[in-house]
């Protein structure tokens, strides 16, 4: 009895001290307890549904860790932002409950979370995201990711947007101990620290990355100690107590808001359930579990508030009943909510096109003028790109450029030359060599309202950023039920011709066309480069804009006026009767050369430059095939699964009955691009091979 009293006295002292220090009202404290309880019953309910096999899909339950999300979100201002993880129900609830301002609104939020986990149309993301992808971008929840560590660069980008927009919002980035060992963590903390970005990294150290304990995953036992490496504050706190979490996060948030940069806060916590439903938890002992459960915030915080005299038992019971009723209502809502209809399958992949029929017609007229006006000025492909970015930056202050060597150096191929001098270091930003975080920061900045143009120096390096651009950037709109847009451009360049071998010469566009939700643009001429880049910047979708290293010095006519080329319109670069030749990027020029040779043999080749692979203007291709009956596709990509194969498949589906000969493709050898010029020339399609292919379809 004496011991209990002593303990109780200590609790009163501790709790009271924390409350006093943070100046918390009873209402705020009860809200925190209510949120903890609501997360817990939500998760227990899901565990129950999973065990009854009523619920399908993965669910990573937050039970046990409630104090972290509730405490951290309680330290935010209403207009601050968060990013979440696959174990994200707690973050989504703490944030959504705070964003909703009425009891009805709070119930609706709870309903929509439950419906989303159950894959119902009434969910936050119309049932398209589910447990791992709850988002509420409108209110500042930039969403949860299924990739461990996937949202750390996104949070950095959102914080960069705040800095560039010169407001004082802070981004709270949740992730786990497992994510602390990904490259994203290191790249992101470095970049955020470097630029003093307003982001607070909250590590939920629940001791295990799936089954592997932290001590088996890191030499350094404290995650927060890693902050030293990036020159930012780091702190480890008790993640089972919402008040200690709130206190630490509040300090970090205030620091960030003052413009002093990021902090790393490690919250020691524990998950009650396994990693997921299928996890037998063989890697931890029941004793260890019981020890942590003594500190269960669901019970302990309630007791603390009672002991501290904030809450009576009757109030606590009433609160519990209210929470249970709320859960019941949410389940009723979810069960009544319809399944998504088949028509929803293909909606929300892309943001609606900003291009009108008039834009398309205007461009067709302009193109004609470019082709026929002998007095039009001639500029290079790289000058055209510089002009495009300059004009868009003058037109829209949300547009900014960042990447490796884009600043003073002007880009590896001179495509940003002069912009640093004109716009300064905060609109043309040199980055560390961190491709993943360049890609992810572009996603986060775009979702937070900017229009980033990020440069990845070589397309060969884009796989380093693939998770960020493809898994987050391209999919977020769909996963989040169409409730976000990601208006970003990733500029990069590819192609062979400089004898720089297998890591600097590839044509990797089909890696990018494969993913839903991202456009792929590949201009062949200065005119196309300028108009398409301007359009890509104005488009509301992620765009992979792939230039060709051998084209930067090529000159061609470019109008001086402001113009855009709507995405998804191919250009017939040379009309012809006999063969439809479809190509893009540098191979268009070789195809045109081949067409001239064939013309002397009486073979009239129609050369179509796709200009944008996605959206693909298949109509122009089909109309041509219906006319000629013969198809040759030319690409610099590896023949194996190149994009031209997709075009051929579509021709087969849409115009089989018009084909008069088997389709033929000309593509690069299925070998890494070799250094020796003689081998490089053999690997890449040349004019002779294109001529041969056309003769073959004519035979």
């Amino acid at each position, binding site marked *: 009895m004496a011991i209990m009293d002593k303990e109780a006295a200590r609790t009163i002292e501790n709790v009271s001290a924390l409350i006093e220090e943070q100046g918390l009202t009873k209402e705020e404290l009860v809200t925190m307890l209510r949120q903890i309880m609501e997360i817990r019953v939500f998760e227990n309910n899901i565990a129950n549904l999973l065990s009854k096999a009523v619920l399908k899909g993965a669910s990573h339950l937050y039970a046990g860790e409630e104090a972290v999300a509730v405490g951290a979100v309680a330290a935010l201002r209403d207009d601050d932002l968060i990013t979440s993880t696959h174990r994200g129900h707690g973050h989504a609830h703490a944030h959504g409950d705070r964003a909703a301002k009425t009891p009805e609104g709070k119930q609706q939020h709870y309903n929509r979370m439950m419906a989303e986990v159950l894959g119902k149309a009434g969910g936050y993301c119309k049932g398209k995201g589910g447990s791992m992808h709850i988002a509420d971008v409108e209110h500042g929840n930039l969403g949860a990711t299924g990739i461990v560590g996937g949202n750390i660069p996104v949070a950095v980008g959102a914080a960069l947007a705040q800095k560039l927009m010169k407001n004082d919002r802070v981004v709270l980035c949740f992730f786990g101990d497992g994510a602390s060992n990904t490259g994203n963590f290191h790249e992101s903390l470095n970049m955020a620290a470097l630029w003093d970005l307003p982001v607070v990294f909250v590590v939920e150290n629940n001791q295990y990355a799936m089954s592997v304990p932290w001590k088996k995953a890191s030499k350094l036992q404290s995650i927060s100690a890693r902050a030293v490496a990036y020159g930012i504050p780091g702190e480890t706190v008790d993640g089972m107590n919402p008040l200690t979490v709130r206190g630490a996060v509040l300090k970090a948030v205030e620091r960030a808001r003052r413009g002093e940069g990021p902090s790393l806060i490690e919250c020691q916590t524990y998950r009650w359930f396994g990693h997921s439903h299928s996890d037998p938890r063989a890697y931890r002992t029941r004793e260890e579990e019981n020890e942590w459960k003594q500190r269960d915030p669901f019970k302990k915080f309630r007791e603390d508030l009672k002991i501290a005299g904030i809450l009576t038992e009757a109030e606590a019971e009433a609160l519990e009943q209210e929470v249970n009723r709320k859960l019941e209502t949410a389940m009723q809502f979810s069960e009544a909510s319809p399944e998504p209809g088949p028509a929803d399958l293909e909606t929300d992949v892309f943001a609606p096109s900003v291009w009108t029929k008039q834009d398309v017609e205007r461009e067709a007229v302009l193109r004609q003028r470019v082709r026929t006006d002998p007095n039009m000025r001639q500029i290079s492909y790289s000058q055209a790109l510089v002009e495009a970015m300059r004009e868009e930056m003058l037109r829209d202050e949300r547009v900014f450029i960042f990447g490796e060597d884009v600043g003073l150096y002007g880009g590896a191929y001179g495509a940003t030359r002069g912009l640093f001098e004109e716009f300064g270091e905060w609109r043309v930003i040199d980055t560390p060599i961190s491709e993943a975080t360049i890609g992810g920061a572009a996603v986060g900045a775009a979702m937070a309202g900017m229009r980033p143009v990020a440069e990845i120096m070589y397309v060969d390096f884009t796989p380093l950023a693939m998770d960020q651009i493809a898994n987050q950037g391209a999919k977020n709109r769909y996963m989040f039920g169409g409730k976000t847009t990601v208006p970003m451009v990733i500029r990069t360049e590819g192609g062979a011709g400089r004898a720089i071998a297998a890591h600097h010469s590839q044509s990797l566009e089909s890696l990018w066309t494969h993913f839903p939700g991202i456009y792929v643009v590949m201009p062949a001429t200065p005119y196309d480069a300028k108009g398409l880049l301007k359009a890509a910047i104005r488009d509301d979708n992620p765009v992979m804009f792939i230039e060709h290293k051998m084209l930067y010095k090529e000159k061609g006519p470019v109008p001086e006026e402001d113009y855009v080329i709507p995405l998804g319109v191919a250009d017939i670069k040379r009309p012809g009767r006999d063969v439809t030749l479809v190509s893009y990027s540098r191979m268009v020029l070789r195809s045109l050369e081949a067409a001239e040779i064939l013309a002397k043999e009486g073979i009239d080749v129609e050369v179509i430059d796709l200009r944008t692979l996605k959206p693909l203007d298949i109509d122009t291709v089909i109309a041509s095939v219906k006319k000629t*009956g013969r198809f040759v596709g030319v690409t610099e990509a590896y023949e194996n699964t190149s994009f031209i194969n997709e075009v051929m498949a579509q021709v087969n589906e849409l115009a*089989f*009955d*018009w*084909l*008069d*000969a*088997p389709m033929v493709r000309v593509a690069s050898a299925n070998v890494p691009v070799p250094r020796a010029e003689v081998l490089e020339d053999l690997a890449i399609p040349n004019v002779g091979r294109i001529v041969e292919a056309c003769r073959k379809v004519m*035979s």
Partner: protein
Amino acid sequence: MAEELFIPKLGQTVETVTLIAWKVEDGAKVEFGQEVLEVETDKAVFPVEANANGYIHLGPYKAGDVLPVLTVVAIIGKQDEKFAVSAAPAVGAEELEKAATEESAPSRAVGAVQPSSLPQAVQEGGREVPFASPRARRLAVEKGVDVRQVSPTGGGGVRVVEKDVVAYLSRQPKATPLARRIAEAEGLDLSALNAGEGVITKTDVLGAVKAGGAVQSAPLPISAEGDVRERIPLKGVRGIIAERMAVSVHTTARVTMFMDADATELVRFRKRLKERYEKEWDFSPGYNELLAKICASALRRYPYMNARLVEDAIEHLAHVNIGIAVDTDRGLLVPVVRDVDAKGLRQIGEEFRQLAERARSGRSQLDDISGGTFTITNLGMYDIDYFTPVINLPEAAILGVGRIVPRPVYIGDELMRREMMTLSLVFDHRLVDGAPAARFLQYIRDLIEEPALLGVL
């Protein structure tokens, strides 16, 4: 020398026929093309026509005998000749080979076979179809060209390409498409028709056909006795109908669905077609052909409806061949228009008109009424609204079409006069479930309501 009259090979799968009745007396004088014998396959009753002018001497075969195809059943020659089979029987190479290995009937002994004596059907069936590019095939179908007649030059001489068909066409006598089709159906060589410098028309072809000898069908024999006022023997078309309907009803799991369709646009569409094309085409498409086209589109989209049940599997079929029920004096016949999905309305209409005409005049060929994959039966002209037709085995479904009649219908909040019809889809639940069948029917309904989409879908 006398001409041997043999049982024609009526199709790839027909091995034997049952002799139903001789239509002429032994020793009678017959004319080329005259129907002399009636035989029955498992599918239908077929007339056998005299293949020469002269006196017919019947072989020792009577009603009920089951005969292998290509059996010589009579000779046609001089009045005083006697039935005898020559040393070289009119047996196809296939059958000869079979006889050699299986030691079948002694009358089918192996003998020296003159290639010229091989029946046409075998020659046709045995002839290889060359490779043709899709574009060339498309043009060939459009122009009614048999690609087997075209010399290939594509791919180094292995593939018929577009220009080969164009070259072939430029060498052919000029004829209207209708004339070409009639000639094809009648087995008439157009190049034998002398049309001078002009274009061969339907009239030219029909004239030539008539000159070749018209065929008259004999009425079915009728018997009556006792208190039966009239006795209709269960044989011929009637017998087959009786048997097949019973088999269908007893073996299929029939489910019928009814759906109303607003045919206002279809009526308008048909009217427009008539105004526009009747002169040029010599006819205008009826609802049957329009519905055939609509069903073909639906069958392509929902291949599970274009199916048949075999012993251990459901087979989705490659061709969309649509049977359209025709009421004839002899009973119900279902001529089949082939590959409806690949043909235009004009071609469908022309083919169906020929098929129906042949069916009504009792001159259907086996190919006319077999190979269907789906059937349409229309009783609208008798003011029937809906009904439950019997599935034409081995098909998976049949569409019953009711009359088109104005009814008040709510469009939004407004009551309007619309031309309404009811569709009755009977399908075999062994092959297809209710919901997929319903989707199929909905799609048909949608096209009826918006026939303009036919050209798009």
